[in-house]
């Protein structure tokens, strides 16, 4: 059901009462949304809560949904607002143990050579730590770019920031991650 339809069409169909359209839409976007939230708030329980809260708001707002932007952008906007609210409530950042917990979720390919596996594992670990160390605004922009492939304009729409501000955040995030990976 709904394989040939866009996300926006599925959302409109669900708003009209089609439950299967929601299932198809959820299957398409659940991973992307969950990873964005989980990498923004390292505590898994919080990520689960924010994930459910995001969908709950989208479900209740289905009648007001208008196809003025991509559905993923609209959904990420809801999630971003919840994440930012949580980040403002919880400072400082998560400690190293939580980061290690996230790193433990890595899915390592089994057929890679041991040295390469170690090297690649170290690179991913550094990337994960670099992401954790980023300021919230820079990390959110970076995740929206990397996880959801959003453009600068779409990131600006989701975060409510200006185009140049988003570009600046991405630039600094990119520089810090690059510096951390080069250590």
């Amino acid at each position, binding site marked *: 059901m709904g394989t040939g339809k866009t996300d926006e069409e599925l959302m409109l169909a669900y708003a009209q009462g089609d439950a299967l359209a929601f299932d198809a839409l959820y299957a398409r976007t659940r991973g992307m949304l969950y990873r964005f939230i989980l990498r923004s708030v390292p505590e898994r329980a919080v990520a689960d809560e924010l994930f459910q809260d995001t969908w709950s708001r989208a479900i209740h707002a289905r009648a007001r949904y208008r196809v003025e932007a991509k559905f993923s952008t609209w959904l990420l906007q809801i999630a971003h607002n919840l994440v930012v609210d949580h980040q403002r409530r919880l400072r400082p950042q998560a400690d190293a143990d939580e980061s290690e917990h996230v790193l433990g979720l890595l899915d390592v390919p089994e057929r890679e050579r041991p040295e390469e596996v170690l090297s690649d594992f170290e690179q991913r670990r550094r990337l994960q730590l670099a992401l954790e160390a980023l300021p919230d605004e820079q990390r959110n922009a970076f995740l929206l770019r990397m996880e959801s492939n959003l453009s600068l304009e779409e990131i600006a729409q989701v975060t409510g920031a200006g185009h140049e501000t988003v570009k600046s955040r991405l630039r600094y995030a990119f520089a810090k991650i690059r*510096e951390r990976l080069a250590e």
Partner: protein
Amino acid sequence: MSDIKKPSQTTPPEHGFDAEFDAFLREQDSRLAALYRKLPHPEPDAAIDAQVRAQARSALRMPNEAAAQASRPVARSRVQRWLPAFGAAATLLLVAGLAWRLVPPTTPPRRETAAIADAPAPGVAQSERTVPMPAPVPPPAQPATPPAPVDATAQYRHTPNTVAAKPESSIAADNAKTDAKSNAGGALAAAPKIAAPASATLPGSAEPRAFPSRAVEQPRAKSAPPPVAATAPPPPPAAMEAETARSAARAAAAPAPELRESASADGAAAMQAFADKATAGGSSFVVRPEPSAPGRYHWEIGGGPTAAPARDGIYPPDPPPLAAWVQIVRAMLRDGHRDAARQALADLRAQHPDFRVPPDLRGLE
């Protein structure tokens, strides 16, 4: 912003940084993107998936809630859409109400004519000119003028009335003209157009109308001449309103002190001017008992040097001018006809509702 304040700490010095960053922004498969895709891909638990799907289905089973949520903004927008219309209507109503309040009240043409006929002087206050006049009480049927001593003015009193057919506006204009001429020293002979018998002038009804407003622009005279009704030069056919005004002025001349005492502040000023005008005109009146009928009084108003037409009568029943009427009441009291005096005062009040009874006559009420 914190990420802009310290560029030197974070901006790498390498020349290839900008190129790598542009590639990061443009390309989907940059080196950093490839590394990011190697990060674990965690997904929500199946329990969370089940909860979300169950919530989505339960939301569809509550269409009322969804309909309410969907209709709430619409209803709000309908109200907001009508708000400017309501505001415009309220503003229009307010402006119309203010305009209706500010527009001067329109008076019927007859009232305008009356106002013109009153010939307000330049110095007369607006309030004096617009004071509503009491409705004149129709005078009793006027009997034929009783035989009187041969009087040069008699021929004018019995001249056929031609004023009835004249419009009021013309009368008013003539009235004003006549007043001016009489003030100037007697050119009444130049106004022969209107001739009316004394009984046609309805003095009782004309005087209240002329009283407040005509009494203004006359210069103050030192004294009133003695009554000279019988010796007045024969005037031309008299203008009805001229005679009315003049008789009112003459009537006010004699009892002016009493009237001034009893009048209100505005009325006192008008009364003073009225008396002044009458005095300047040199007219007067005579009140004497009628020998043939005890309790009845002969009154007579005569023209002064201006040779205004004179009138006379016997009260009761002939209603005299206001001042003469007051004098008749006093004369009745003086001569012991108290009941007649009470009746005369009642008649006077009926004819002049705005007249304030002098203090010496208040015991009769």
